């Protein structure tokens, strides 16, 4: 087990790719798959690999995330020595200069890295949905005698073509020879999943080198510029992995869970995915319920029709209401005769009787938290 590794999850990205879903929370805290938040996957992967010390670098606005991860108990991270640590941005607004890159965030928590007893770090961004045995990464590190290992996936589909992806050029020995964060031109099908493994001392040195030169971007300045200097190797993740970086990918990958193979791989393959549990009763199906090809979280109350959809905790679908190809988050209420199609409803949305909302599959409609339509 990876007791000698500390996990670092970087949730400081504040770009607006997830639109309304990240207006009230960070990417890590966006609900996914009915009862999870996106961060649950990387956090569970780390916990399942035996990592006992995990730091989450957060945005200032981290209330949802704090509430969700709490003390880390659900991931069995309560501990006297190690555990789960929240690392908020360190600056005071009266001194704020308006510029923070991820390197600054790491640098500001140097004391936490120094104090931790572990010898290695596993650094990950907060927006990838996957179930991976992280011990494979360390094995790859040892086999290749690498300085740094990056996890990648061979992307065969056309995904992400609207967004920058970090593509890799890997030689026959597995060493990474080129890296580029580009929108269209890819070096190869290998796409980095934004997970890096290295010695803690090396990580701290890279951060220090960046700070010394005024560099702010860990990937571009810390890794790409050092491809010659350090032995950086790739480790392939062969299973399902979805980077959530737009409403489009959010919707598409959510719907992907309706494939039982994906559902089983994601939730059972290497270990369970943990999340904050809530006290919800079972799903109640009334006599008039018609449900097919859907995922439902506990506490739902179904009297209407639900097809090809994902329902969060405590959603109510009244008699005669229809939900199709949609994602309804926690406590949504779809009243009598209402129709919801190709839509993403954030938490606590109410669709009043008879109202109909419809998006397109390629452009799902997003309804913001607590809206009443």
């Amino acid at each position, binding site marked *: 087990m990876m007791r000698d590794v500390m996990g670092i999850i970087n949730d400081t990205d504040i770009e607006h790719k997830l639109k309304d879903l990240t207006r009230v929370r960070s990417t890590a805290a966006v609900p996914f798959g009915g009862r999870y938040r996106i961060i649950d996957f990387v956090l569970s992967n780390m916990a399942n690999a035996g990592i006992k010390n995990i730091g989450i670098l957060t945005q200032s606005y981290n209330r949802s995330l704090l509430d969700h991860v709490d003390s880390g108990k659900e991931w069995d991270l309560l501990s006297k020595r190690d555990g789960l640590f929240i690392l908020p941005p360190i600056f005071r607004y009266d001194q704020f200069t308006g510029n923070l890159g991820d390197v600054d965030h790491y640098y500001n928590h140097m004391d936490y890295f120094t104090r931790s007893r572990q010898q290695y770090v596993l650094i990950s961004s907060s927006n990838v949905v996957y179930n991976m045995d992280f011990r494979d990464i360390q094995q790859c590190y040892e086999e290749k005698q690498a300085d740094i290992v990056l996890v990648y996936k061979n992307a065969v589909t056309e995904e992400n073509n609207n967004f920058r992806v970090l593509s890799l050029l890997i030689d026959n020995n597995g060493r990474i020879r080129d890296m580029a964060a580009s929108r269209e031109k890819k070096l190869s099908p290998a796409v980095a999943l934004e997970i890096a493994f290295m010695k803690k001392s090396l990580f701290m040195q890279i951060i220090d080198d960046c700070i010394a030169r005024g560099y702010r971007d860990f990937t571009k300045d810390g890794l790409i510029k050092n491809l010659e200097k350090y032995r950086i190797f790739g480790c392939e993740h062969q299973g399902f992995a979805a980077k959530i970086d737009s409403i489009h990918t959010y919707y598409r990958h959510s719907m992907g869970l309706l494939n*039982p193979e994906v559902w089983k791989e994601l*939730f059972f393959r290497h270990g369970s995915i943990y999340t904050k549990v809530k006290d919800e009763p*079972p*799903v*109640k199906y009334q*006599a008039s319920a018609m449900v*097919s090809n859907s*995922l439902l979280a*506990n506490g739902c109350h179904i009297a209407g029709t639900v097809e090809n959809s994902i329902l969060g905790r405590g959603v109510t679908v009244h008699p005669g209401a229809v939900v199709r190809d949609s994602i309804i988050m926690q406590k949504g209420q779809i009243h009598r005769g209402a129709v919801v199609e190709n839509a993403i409803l954030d938490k606590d949305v109410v669709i009043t009787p008879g109202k109909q909302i419809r998006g397109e599959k390629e452009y799902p409609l997003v309804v913001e938290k607590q809206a009443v339509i």
Partner: protein
Amino acid sequence: MYKQECIAMLLAGGQGTRLGILTRKLAKPAVPFGGKYRIIDFTLSNCSNSGIYTVGVLTQYQPLILNSYIGIGSHWDLDKKRGGVTVLPPYVRHDGGHWYLGTANAVYQNIEFVDQYDPEYVLILSGDHIYKMDYSLMLDYHKEKAADATIAVIEVPWEETHRFGIMNTNLDNAIVEFQEKPREAKNNLASMGVYVFNWQLLRKILIEDEMDKSSDHDFGKNLIPRLLEEGKRIYAYPFRHYWKDVGTIESLWQANMDLLHDQPELDLYEKDWKIYSVNPNQPVQFIAPNAQVKKSLVNEGCQIYGSVENSVLFPGVVVGEGSVIKDSVIMSDTVIGKNVTIERAIIGEECTVEDDCIIGQPGEGQEEITVLGENVVTVKAKNIPGGVEINIENCHEFGCCPNGLTKQEVIS
């Protein structure tokens, strides 16, 4: 310790013999119910919701699962710095050890525990019943009546009065007579086994009862009659909501079915009176394209490819394509293959029902519930007649033993 106005003593030592194979390795309060609960969840949640945060749980029979289930009570919000849940097994003193001999003796042996909190009132509860009740209202009633003891009562059908302790009351609800399981009842108000006592009085009576060698040391049979004889003020507290003693297989099955009406008498979805439970970690349930689910409770981790009607499914149950589950209770992590029919049955945890089996064959005039204990495995196309009970002791008779095991290996 800190003084508390009222603490609860919860009797959870019952063996529940009439539940047969379901309580072979489990105390009755730990029996699973309603898709994700255990019976004791109702009483513990009632305590928490009523603001009774100090609860002693008296255990004796097969307590391992119950002990680790209860832990320090955090799942019911009962892990408090002052008070909280304490599990109280029988123990050895410097003058020797004594098992709990009756409900009253169990409390007697824990007088020191109660005295730590120096309470005015003690609430005596049982972990065997399914109901939602605000004990704080009963306590208010007890104070208002200036009673020495108050007993919660419920109207039962006249023809069932012989199964209960029956209270005869005057107009003010004062109890004037108590009949334990009477052949001819004068009334149909039955004791629910929920009592409020003034602690100093109960303490005295418990000590007196302990001295009485002819006593069975039982609350209903001995203590209440003794108090009535002494002319104490005992009041009945009428309760008019859902209450069920799930003492038999039939009543356990029925109580599960009671939850499946569109508007059930016992509402699990009430926001202000949640029933808490230990939540397993399971992904959301998956209902396949051709599945049918109606009038049912289904839990997280379930995968439904077939048809489920009027049934209760615990977490992690798989129902294969073409299978039909009707009027049944399926406990956690049981896997049901394809084209299986299950009707009027209770299937225990982690069973495997292979393809083409028929359990509780319908249409043969069988009224009894079929029960499979935990870990039973039915081979392909097996017919299990209605009304039988199969567990690891008789599974070989039905060819339903876990993977290749003989009777001997299974039992050892």
